[in-house]
């Protein structure tokens, strides 16, 4: 933003959810956009910039989709104040572009009239006019504009020339624009909303004709997708396909990334003088960041499907089908997708909670996201299961190892629901939130727009990996490598490091849950990413990176109780620094990551304690 003058023309994009506002924002600004952060605010608001055809530099403020400027939470009030110029360091918008879905005008027109009352000039961008036309909807634009007293411009956000008229209008407006008025806003009363609706009803009767079967296909598709039985079956099938894709399509790319980072680490170690710098680069930065970036392919595949289904209109249906099923514990239908994403990795899951507009439900979803078994836990699970659970069959056909694996996944889901239920009961008691959600008509997604959104998500993930996560990795490397082993030391170097010292110091605390000091030490570098604990265990047992011999070693050294206790610990696995740093980032506060760490650690400790003692008692 640095090269844009402070007095550059500013306009805000406001519109209902599903009106194609994001696509319009992307088309207008291209890659020149960033997420704005207001202190303590969790609602996403984006800033973008563009140069108009007339050569003007303009700033676009993108607000989350809404039906009203009222704002249902203090967070939304902040984004409203941003365009009204009521925040200390931001000027009011010079113009509001109200984006309307031409196939569903009623609510957009009401919002546009509410925006007009602020005193800021408003333009109505009639988006998706192509789809409206295909459905036989006709709109008398000139008449509409006269009636509502707002200039109306047709746009097709997903086509390159579809924003031409809007850009031209922006230029004309900026040309004539002089001093901006001081905007004012008052909360509309229910009766004002009713009166506006009555007015809009007359306007629509006069200017818009909608054939009776305009949404015939949406209704036909919904007869299957919202069916209580077939709908759930299709949802399960869709989930199954997404999981298949996430885990199978991304394997080659993940292997390549892993090989690339291994190669880079090896290159650094052979070409740099052996010492702290080489270790910091190879073991700290390259290996640490690599252990997180390796999940990028899974995240991209996952987001591809989520955004594709969202643009198609299916996600609202998935929320509808799941609402009652997960609503019993106080979650929202929309919590479903973030929780689903968390099975790949909690980081994109937590990032995806932005679709939940209620703050409490969003926080509840964020807090339980790490309980979904992420793929970083799989190496830990498979190591211990292979070493301790006999590969036998129950009743001749149920694989015992498979049962344990399934049990661990199920334990995570069940505890997530219990935790959400406890939060609802004690932390946010008595405040149940309504589930009110538009079911948009189905639309063919634009691959360009989907691709752009996927890349954006990937970029945000890399930014996290590049900033917060990188600094965590360096810290963890430091703990695991400094101070180095003394002369003539016989134990592995990590044993003498701060991680070793902390691990040994923590050991008395962890002994009651059956952990030996080797596990205690391995948990420290395991904070980088959960699967790093496997490599760290190998280091502590001085085995090098051979997991086969690690399995044999722990099978010989650990009791069954210890092994099962570690599995129970990993169901909760509080020690993921990347997750905690993303929670801090998303909630803009240290309170929530600390609360998350505390409750996960407490649960992990209790679960491991109970598991250890019951197993020891049963096997003695």
């Amino acid at each position, binding site marked *: 933003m640095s090269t844009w003058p402070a007095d550059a023309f500013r306009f805000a994009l406001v519109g209902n959810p599903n009106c194609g506002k994001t696509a319009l924002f992307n088309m207008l600004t291209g890659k020149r956009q960033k997420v704005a952060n207001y202190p303590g605010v969790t609602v996403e608001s984006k800033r973008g910039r563009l140069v108009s055809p007339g050569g003007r530099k303009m700033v676009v403020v993108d607000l989350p989709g809404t039906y009203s400027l*009222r704002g249902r939470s203090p967070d939304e009030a902040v984004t409203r104040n941003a365009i009204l110029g009521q925040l200390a360091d931001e000027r009011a918008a010079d113009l509001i572009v109200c984006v309307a879905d031409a196939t569903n005008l009623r609510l957009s027109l009401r919002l546009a009239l509410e925006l007009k009352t602020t005193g800021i000039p408003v333009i109505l961008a009639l988006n998706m006019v192509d789809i409206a036309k295909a459905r036989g909807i006709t709109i008398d634009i000139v008449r509409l504009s006269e009636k509502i007293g707002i200039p109306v411009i047709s746009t097709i956000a997903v086509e390159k020339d579809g924003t031409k008229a809007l850009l031209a209008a922006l230029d004309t407006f900026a040309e004539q624009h002089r001093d901006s008025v001081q905007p004012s806003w008052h909360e509309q009363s229910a009766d004002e909303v009713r009166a506006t609706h009555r007015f809009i009803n007359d306007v629509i009767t006069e200017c818009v004709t909608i054939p009776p079967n305009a949404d015939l296909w949406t209704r036909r598709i*919904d007869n299957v997708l*919202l069916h209580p039985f077939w709908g759930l079956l299709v949802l399960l099938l869709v989930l199954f396909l997404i999981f298949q894709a996430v885990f199978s399509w991304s394997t080659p790319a993940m292997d390549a990334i892993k090989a690339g980072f291994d190669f880079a680490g090896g290159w650094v170690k052979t070409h740099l003088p052996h010492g702290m710098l080489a270790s910091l680069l190879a073991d700290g930065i390259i290996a640490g960041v690599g252990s997180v970036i390796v999940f990028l392919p899974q995240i991209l595949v996952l987001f591809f499907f989520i955004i594709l289904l969202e643009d198609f209109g299916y996600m609202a249906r998935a929320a509808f089908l799941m609402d009652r099923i997960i609503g019993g514990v106080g979650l929202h239908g929309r919590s479903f997708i973030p929780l689903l994403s968390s099975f790949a990795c909690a980081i994109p899951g937590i990032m995806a909670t932005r679709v939940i507009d209620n703050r409490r439900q969003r926080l509840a979803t964020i807090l339980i996201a790490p309980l979904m078994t992420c793929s970083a836990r799989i190496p830990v699970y498979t190591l211990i299961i292979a070493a301790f659970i006999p590969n036998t069959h129950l009743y001749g056909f149920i694989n015992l190892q498979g049962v344990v694996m399934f049990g661990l996944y199920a334990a995570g889901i069940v505890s997530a629901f219990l935790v959400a239920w406890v939060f609802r009961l004690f932390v946010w008691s008595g405040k149940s939130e309504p589930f009110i959600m538009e079911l948009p008509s189905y639309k063919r997604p634009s691959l360009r727009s989907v691709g752009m959104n996927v890349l954006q998500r990937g970029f945000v993930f890399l930014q996290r990996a590049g900033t917060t996560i990188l600094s965590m990795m360096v810290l963890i490397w430091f703990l695991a490598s400094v101070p180095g082993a003394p002369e003539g030391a016989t134990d592995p170097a990590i044993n003498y490091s701060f991680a070793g010292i902390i691990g040994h110091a923590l050991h008395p605390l962890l002994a009651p849950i059956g952990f030996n000091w080797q596990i205690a030490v391995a948990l420290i570098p395991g904070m980088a990413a959960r699967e790093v604990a496997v490599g760290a265990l190998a280091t502590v047992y001085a085995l090098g990176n051979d997991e086969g011999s690690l399995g044999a070693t722990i099978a010989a050294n650990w009791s069954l109780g210890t092994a099962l206790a570690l599995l129970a610990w990993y169901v909760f696995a509080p020690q993921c620094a990347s997750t905690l740093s993303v929670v801090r980032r998303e909630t803009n506060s240290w309170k929530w990551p600390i609360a998350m760490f505390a409750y996960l650690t407490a649960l992990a400790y209790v679960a491991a304690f109970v598991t250890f003692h019951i197993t020891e008692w049963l096997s003695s």
Partner: protein
Amino acid sequence: MPDPDFHAMPLGAAKKGYRGVIVAVGFPVPRERPIADEFNEELERRLLEIGFVEGAQIEILHEGLIGGDPIAIRVDDMSVALRRHEANAILVSAPMAASALSQG
């Protein structure tokens, strides 16, 4: 004076296939726990903002699996999902002939 062709009921009690017209929005919803009046006002306004307004034509299109909840409702020319609990804040009526048609 009661109109013989007219009986109002909460939308939350309507079954799939029900067609009618909204006659009132913002009917106080009984809560599990006592709750401030602001809640009902907030609900009223959110319902109004998403298109549930007196005079709008509605039809219940779909019901969820558990307890027929939530419901997918046609409101004029758009569809909205709502839990039955919140739908009780909306009073609807169907002329006798129309409701007999939809039930028969």
